[in-house]
């Protein structure tokens, strides 16, 4: 096993951890988004609440969620470790003027991944406190659908999104996530060595679209809810 520990400690090993956890979080975002979009269904949250119940009780998904928490922590901790390591490698004296150019990636995003990540981490804390923790502590009103008692998470969300400050924070965080993805998506493939003259442009194209569309859809939900607009209709009935 020594070789594996050595690998994890190597510069490329550390980057691979970032890459794999990052890719996992990227897929999670898509799943999370499909759930969130159900908030825009004009059924007073029924579909969303039933979905939420399924997500919190299905054992397979539960198991996956632990993997998710672990990934988030690993991604954050490893990220901080790398950041510190890189700052020390750069040395104490910075450049008087520094121009950072990039090739085929967003140079702002690429050179500020750690800061973007820290903002996302803070947002995540707020996000978990506001929804996940409230739900776990059972401070959520109940709703009844077809005779089944279900936590009415929707009310919690709708309440939060009636606050313009929170909507602003949320939208800002999504922009940050967008930037983080803009570099992170393709960077993950580069780190795994998955580049190819023919396919890399495709990966980069998908990465660009993903990092614009996904945060945009996330951000649009609180805005629409703030203005009480529910454009989707339920497929439950």
């Amino acid at each position, binding site marked *: 096993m020594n*070789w594996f520990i050595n690998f994890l400690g190597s510069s490329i090993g550390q980057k691979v951890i970032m890459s794999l956890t990052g890719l996992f979080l990227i897929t999670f975002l898509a799943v999370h988004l499909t759930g969130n979009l159900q908030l825009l269904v004009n059924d007073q949250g029924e579909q969303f609440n039933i979905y939420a119940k399924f997500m919190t009780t299905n054992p397979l998904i539960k198991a996956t969620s632990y993997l998710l928490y672990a990934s988030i922590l690993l991604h954050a901790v490893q990220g901080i470790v790398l950041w510190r390591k*890189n700052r020390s490698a750069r040395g104490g004296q910075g450049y008087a003027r520094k121009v950072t150019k990039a090739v085929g990636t967003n140079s702002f995003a690429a050179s500020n991944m750690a800061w973007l990540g820290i903002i996302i981490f803070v947002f995540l804390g707020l996000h978990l406190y506001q929804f996940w923790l409230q739900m776990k502590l059972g401070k959520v009103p109940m709703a009844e659908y077809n005779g089944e008692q279900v936590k009415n998470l929707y009310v919690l969300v709708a309440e939060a999104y009636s606050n313009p400050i929170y909507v602003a924070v949320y939208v800002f965080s999504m922009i940050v996530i967008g930037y983080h993805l803009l570099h992170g998506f393709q960077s993950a493939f580069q780190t795994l*060595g998955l580049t190819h003259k023919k396919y890399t442009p495709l990966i980069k194209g998908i990465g660009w679209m993903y990092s614009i569309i996904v945060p945009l859809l996330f951000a649009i939900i609180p805005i629409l809810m703030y203005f009480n607009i529910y454009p989707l209709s339920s497929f439950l009935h």
Partner: protein
Amino acid sequence: MKITLKVWRQGGKYKGEFVEYKLDNVKEEMSFLEMMDVLNESLVQKKEQPVAFEHDCREGICGTCSMVIDGQPHGPQKATTTCQLHMRSFKDGDTIYVEPFRAKAFPVIRDLVVDRSAFDRIIQSGGYISVNTGQAQDANAIPVEKDVASMAFDAAACIGCGACVAACPNASAMLFVSAKVSHLAMLPQGKVEAKKRAQAMVKTMDMEGFGRCSNVTACEAECPKEISVNNIARLNREYLGSVFASEKIV
């Protein structure tokens, strides 16, 4: 042209600071280093210690020059070493900051001169093909696809100047290491040792105190020989392959 230089001075009576020099008679046709020569000549005339900077071939191939000019290693012109940069890239009245390549693995020796011997040690740990003189078979015994040879050349064009490290926000040496690993791994002659080489060179790179690559690609943007970050992906591939597929433990 009138140029104001803010030059990093370190060593001797200087503790590590920017010193301002004004030059009134800079010609557009001068190379950047010739402008530095003129500065040094004037310092010598005043019996002061001239600015120490490294340079040799002045043709953009030896990789000796090592300055960061206005925040960019080798200055603003793309695919150009400092020695090939000319003053027509600047405007009359410009203020130019001149600094050494900065990185923990490249300690400053004096003024703009840094110690890049870490690169040599990386090569020594595996950046070669183990063939003794006289052991070679006929040069045409193994055909090499033209495009592959050409790609290997693109990687082998590295001049070992260290601009990649100086440009990288993380002071990572991945472009340098990957260029050598790619150059040799792509050729059939170098394939034999490719796995061992990737592991050994990465290990040394890590020990020398370079940062970790986060794919910023500033290295490629500043590389005077335009070495591609695709080489970094190839190194990652070689490395992962060697760690997980090879039975050898390095």
